[in-house]
């Protein structure tokens, strides 16, 4: 079994995180932004898993379980908000909700 170097996994996680971030910044559709956030969360989770396997410690995996449950809770709340958002603005474009400008 070929050992995957640590740097590869870290780079993968970083790429994933950046993808999520760029998606978050460029997408205007709130649904896609939520998905981008999920990607970023998973990138962070991936780093935990990699670290846990590299040092053979369970902490990282425990942490990942936490992130996973937090993400599911977040998705539940987020989707509910999106439904409300759509009801209110009749669109999914986040730029429509810019009433809180200074």
């Amino acid at each position, binding site marked *: 079994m070929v050992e995957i170097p640590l740097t590869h996994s870290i780079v993968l996680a970083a790429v994933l995180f950046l993808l999520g*971030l760029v998606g*978050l*910044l*460029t*997408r*205007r559709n709130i649904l896609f*932004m939520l998905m981008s956030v999920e990607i970023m969360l998973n990138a962070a989770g991936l780093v935990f898993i990699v670290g846990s396997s590299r040092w053979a410690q369970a902490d990282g995996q425990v942490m990942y379980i936490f992130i996973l449950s937090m993400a599911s809770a977040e998705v539940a709340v987020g989707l509910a908000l999106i439904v409300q958002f759509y009801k209110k603005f009749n669109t999914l474009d*986040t*730029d429509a*909700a*810019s*009433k*809180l*400008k*200074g």
Partner: protein
Amino acid sequence: MNMADLLWIIVAMPFTIFLVLAFLGKKLSANLTAIIAISGTGTSALLTILLGWSFLGSPPENYSLSSHLWEWMNAGGLITSMSLRLDALSLVFIFVITFVGFLILVYSTEFMRNEEGYARFFAYMNLFIGSMLILVLADNLLLLYLGWEGVGLCSYLLIGFWYKDPANGYAARKAFIMTRIGDTALIIGLFLLFTEFGTLNIADILSAAPEKWASGDPTARLAAFLLLGGAVGKSAQLPLQTWLPDAMAGPSPVSALIHAATMVTAGVYLIARTHTIFELAPLAQNAVAIIGATTLLLAGFSALTQRDIKRVLAYSTMSQIGYMFLALGVGAWSAAVFHFMIHAFFKALLFLGAGAIIMVLHHEHNMFKMGGLYKKLPVIFWTFLIASASLAALPVISAGFYSKDLILWETFASASGGTQLWFLGYIGAFITALYTARMVFVTFFGKTKIEPTQRPGLRITLPLVVLALFSFAGGFIELPHTLGHVQVFSGLMQHALPHLEIRDVAESSELVLQIITGLTSLIAVGAAYVLYIRRRSWTDSIRNSTLVIQIHRFWNLGWGFDTAYDTLLVKPIVYLSRINKNDVVDLISLGLSKAMVYFNKLLVYTQNGKIRWYMATIALGAILTLTISILL
């Protein structure tokens, strides 16, 4: 009834009338207003006479009455009570204030009849009289200061009575501000006295002062000079005298009240009241004499060149108050108060007479446009003549002779006076007689230029006659050794004011000096007769040389004091304030707030309500933080 209980009623009457007229004035008819207006001061005058009668008949202990009304304030060791105190000095003052004030009010009921603000006028007049009564009856300096400021306020209100003309408002502000300079000195003097003695009660201060201070003590000198500053402002003496001629902007009864009974005599009262402090500060007392002597001369020369009859009288007041200051300065306390009383009678009469003339001649102030009035207005002429004789100090027959002669002789005889001061006063007496005679001759003799259209009524002539009686007979209560030796007045005054120490050498010269001063005023009247009746051409030829014209203009404008103050003080201040229009000091705080607003606007752009923008800034911030933490 206890005599002391009358005191508060005397003071309260004018204030009550003020309140009544101030609140109900518009609803009352003119006749009712007139009756109410004179009733308050009339009652006060009656009570004063009653009080004076019993005061003189059965003198109270220490020759003073006091009446404690209530405690005014009690804070931090300063215990001030609303207490009135009457002694011989304040008795003379309240008599003059209420009695002359009453006559002036009676006169005003006719004089102001057709003016707008009839009730307002009398409300102010009553407030004026009330404040002056507070001033002279106060037993502590703070209460005195209350009256002092009240008088200042009322002078402002009354000088600017015809407020629709901006010039009158200017004159009123000038009077207020000029006297305020003196008031500031006075209040600082009060602070000083309080820190020194821990009390403001006049009697306490006067009895404690000789124990605390040796003669010539610097603190005593400072206190005396500060008090003098206040007196100089209110009494229109050098260098704060410029407000008085402009104060003629008010109605004539106001001038009469300001010049005779109230206001300008406040300074004389203050110095006489605090005489102990001045005696402990010989330098300050000398300054009083020198200020008085200088003012009486400067004002006399200015009076000589005025054309407006009221301005002649205004400068004459300044000059006569100068005599009082001269007397105070050499320690002739009683003579100063005596001259104050006589002056109050004849000066009130002169102003009321001048006012009546101006009224019947349709507001003509220039006396060179009058003339020949002695046949047309006999009552005014004769009363005016008696008052003028007093002002000119015609020997033996006039009251003014006795009072002014007393001042001159005591100036000569006093240890702190001397020949120089006497000589200044003597020149002043000549000038006084000259300008008085000029005024009378020009106004009443010669050709009639304007026909009087109306005759003054009884309410105008009656006060004139009463005042004329007093201007004539008032002098006989104090006659010099050489002429009858009556000492009613100084006999009364010695209970309140110290006696003058007379130099030995001076004793014998009294008669000679009296003859000299008497002759001098006669000569001055004669000179005026020649110059203004007999040989008008001489006057004209004198007036034609350039030097005389220059001097004439200089004197006419009151020795250029107004111009000097304008150039030295007003212009620089106006210039500086113009530069500083945008307030240099404020630029710091204003700049700070402007910068805040600017940054606020910058930050407002970041709050654009777009969630992606917020995300980007969070990311940027995170990158920045990470970079910094890695690099450092």
